[in-house]
C-alpha cells in the first residue's frame, strides 16, 4: 500500500459529483478535492493543513466529536451521516457523509466522502412534519371519540328515567277500566317501551365496553333464569301476535349467570330472528344444559341464508343487512350479544344455510357452583 499521507487528488479532468477529503490522526486535512473546495468557496490547496472540524458548523462539530468520532474509532467507518458543512461565507451546506479509517496510531488516515443533501434534508424534514401532524390528529380523534362515547353513555343513562315513568304510567292505566281501543294502545306502548329499553341497554353496554370497563356481569343463582327466558319470549309473542315462537326449556336452576344479561341477549337474538326469519315459519328458542358444565341458548329461524360475505362482519357494531328493506335499530344487537358471550368466557356462533339460520350461545359453567 502506498503511503496515503502523500496522496493528492490532483486536478480532475471530469470533476466528480462528490466531495472528497482525507485527514491524519489529529484530524488535520491532508488533501481535499476541487468539488468540495468549490462547494465551500475555498481553494483545495489552501484547505490542506487546517483542522477538518473547522469545516463544520458548531452544531455539527458537537455531533462529530460526540457521535461520529466514537463510531469511527469503534467500527472503523460511518455511512450516510447527515452533517452541515460551513462555507467561506458561513452558510450551511447540508451534506451526507461516509468515512473510513485506515492505518493506526500515527499512520491513521480517515477518508471522507460527501454528497450534497439539501433536497433530501428538506424531504426528511417534511416527513417528520407529516408524522408530527398525523400524531396530533390521532391524539385529537382519540380524545373526541372518547368524549362521544362518554356522551352516549350519559345520554343512554338519562333516557332510562323518563322511560321508566312511561312504563309505570302504562301499568297504572292498565288497571283502570279501558275501552278496547285504549287497551290496544297500552299494549302497543308497552311493546315500544320494551324495545326502547333494550336499545338503551345495548347502547349503554356498547359505550361502557368501548370506554374500557367491559360488559358488567352480576352473577346470581339460576333459579330466576327460566322465568326470565319465558318472560322475554312472552313479551315478544304479545308484541308479534302473528309470529309463532316455540320454546323448549330444560332445568336451568343450577345455571349461575347474570339473568338480565341473558335476557337481553335473547331479546337481541329474537329481534334479529323476527326481522330476518320467514314469517310463515316458527322461531324456535331452545335453552338447555347439554352437560353439567355448560349452558346453551339457541334461536333458530327459517329465513334466507346470511350471505357468506356478511358472516365475517356479523358481530361488528353498526352492521345491518343491506339486502333487506327493513332496516331498523342501530345494528348493535348481535354485537352486544357476542360481547355478552365474551364476558362469560363463552361464545356466540351462527350457522346459516338454505334450511335455517341458528344463533347459539354457549356458556361454560364452573361445576362447583
Amino acid at each position, binding site marked *: 500500500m502506498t503511503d496515503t499521507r502523500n496522496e493528492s487528488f490532483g486536478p480532475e479532468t471530469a470533476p466528480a459529483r462528490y466531495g472528497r477529503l482525507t485527514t491524519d490522526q*489529529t*484530524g488535520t486535512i491532508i488533501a481535499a478535492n476541487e468539488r468540495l473546495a468549490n462547494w465551500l468557496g475555498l481553494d483545495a490547496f489552501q484547505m490542506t493543513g487546517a*483542522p477538518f*472540524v473547522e469545516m463544520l*458548523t*458548531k*452544531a*455539527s*462539530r*458537537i*455531533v462529530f*466529536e*460526540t*457521535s*461520529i*468520532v*466514537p*463510531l469511527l*474509532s*469503534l*467500527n472503523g467507518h*460511518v*455511512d*450516510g*451521516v*447527515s*452533517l*452541515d458543512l460551513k462555507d467561506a461565507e458561513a452558510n450551511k451546506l447540508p451534506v*451526507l457523509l461516509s468515512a473510513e479509517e485506515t492505518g493506526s496510531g500515527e499512520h491513521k488516515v480517515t477518508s471522507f466522502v460527501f454528497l450534497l443533501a439539501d433536497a433530501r*434534508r428538506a424531504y*426528511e*424534514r417534511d416527513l*417528520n412534519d407529516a408524522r408530527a401532524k398525523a400524531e396530533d390528529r390521532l391524539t385529537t380523534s382519540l380524545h373526541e371519540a372518547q368524549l362521544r362515547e362518554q356522551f352516549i353513555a350519559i345520554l343512554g343513562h338519562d333516557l332510562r328515567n323518563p322511560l321508566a315513568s312511561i312504563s309505570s304510567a302504562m301499568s297504572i292505566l292498565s288497571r283502570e277500566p279501558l275501552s278496547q281501543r285504549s287497551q290496544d294502545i297500552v299494549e302497543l306502548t308497552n311493546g315500544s317501551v320494551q324495545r326502547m329499553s333494550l336499545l338503551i341497554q345495548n347502547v349503554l353496554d356498547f359505550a361502557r365496553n368501548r370506554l374500557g370497563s367491559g360488559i358488567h356481569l352480576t352473577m346470581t343463582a339460576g333459579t330466576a333464569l327460566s322465568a326470565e327466558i319465558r318472560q322475554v319470549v312472552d313479551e315478544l309473542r304479545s308484541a308479534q301476535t302473528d309470529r309463532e315462537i316455540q320454546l323448549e326449556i330444560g332445568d336451568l336452576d343450577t345455571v349461575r349467570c347474570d339473568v338480565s344479561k341473558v335476557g337481553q341477549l335473547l331479546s337481541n337474538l329474537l329481534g334479529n330472528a323476527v326481522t330476518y326469519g320467514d314469517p310463515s315459519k316458527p322461531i324456535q328458542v331452545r335453552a338447555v344444559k347439554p352437560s353439567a358444565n355448560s349452558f346453551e341458548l339457541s334461536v333458530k329461524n327459517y329465513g334466507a341464508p346470511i350471505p357468506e360475505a356478511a358472516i365475517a362482519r356479523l358481530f361488528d357494531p353498526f352492521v345491518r343487512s343491506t339486502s333487506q328493506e327493513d332496516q331498523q335499530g342501530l345494528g348493535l344487537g348481535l354485537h352486544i350479544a357476542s360481547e355478552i358471550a365474551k364476558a362469560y368466557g363463552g361464545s356466540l356462533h351462527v350457522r346459516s344455510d338454505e334450511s335455517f339460520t341458528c344463533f347459539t350461545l354457549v356458556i361454560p359453567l364452573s361445576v362447583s357452583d
Partner: protein
Amino acid sequence: MSAVARHNVKTSGSDARAMVFAHGFGCDQSMWRHVAPHFEDSFNVITFDHIGAGGSDAGGYDPAKYETLNGYASDVVDIGEELNIQDGVFVGHSVGAMIGALAHVDRPDMFSTLVMVGPSPRYIDDTSYKGGFTVDDIKDLLTSFEENPLAWSASFAPKIVGNPDAPEHGQELADSICNLDPVIANGFARATFTSDNREDLCKISAKTLILQCREDIIASEHVGRYVHDKIPGSEFVLLDATGHCPNLTAPEEVISAIRNFLS
C-alpha cells in the same frame, strides 16, 4: 424492572472496590471498552448505558425526570443502591463526569473518588465564563436534532429504518454500537448542553482527578482548569491526546493517568 436491568449494567473483575464507568452524550458504554477491562485485576468494574442509549430499556421514559442531569444522576444512585456500592470510584466521560459528580453530591458515601474525563459544568458562555458555545450555537444544535433526528447521526439509523416487529432485529440492535433512541437522545442533548452545574462543583468532597485533552472543542482546556479550580483539592492532568474522546483515541494514556491517581 431493576435499575441494573434497565441500564444494561455489566460487571466484571474482582469483588474489590467498585469502579463505575459512565459514558457521555452521543454513544454508550462501548466508549470504555479499551479502558475499563484494564482495571478488572483490582476493581469490581461496572459499566452501564444511560437511558435511551445502547442496550438500556427506555420503557416508561419520563421526559420531565430527564429535563436536567439530576434525572441521570438519580439513575446512577439507583444502580449503586442495587449493587450496594460504598466508597466506590466513579469514572465519567464528558457529561457523564458531571452526572457522576451530582451522584456523589447526593450520596458521598457511595462514590468517594471521582475521575472526570473532559468535564464541563456549562457549555454555553456566560458573562465571564467561556463554555465554548453561544446560546445560538446550542439552539442550532437542538433545532437540528428536532428537525432531522434520523439523519444527524449514523447511530440513530437502526431504530428508524429497522422493523421492530422482527425479533432478529432486536439482537442486531443489542449488538450495534452507540445505538441511540432519537427522542431520548434529543432530550439528553438538551439536558447536557443547556446544563449549568457550576454551583455544584464546590459541593464535591470526593478525591477528584480531572483528565483534560488538548484541542477539545466540546470541553476546552480552560473549562477543565475551571473545574479543577472549583473542586477543592482536585488534581488536574493535561493529556497529550487531542479531541474529546481520549478513552477511544488514547486509552493507554487514560489508563496510566487513572492508575497513577488511584495508587
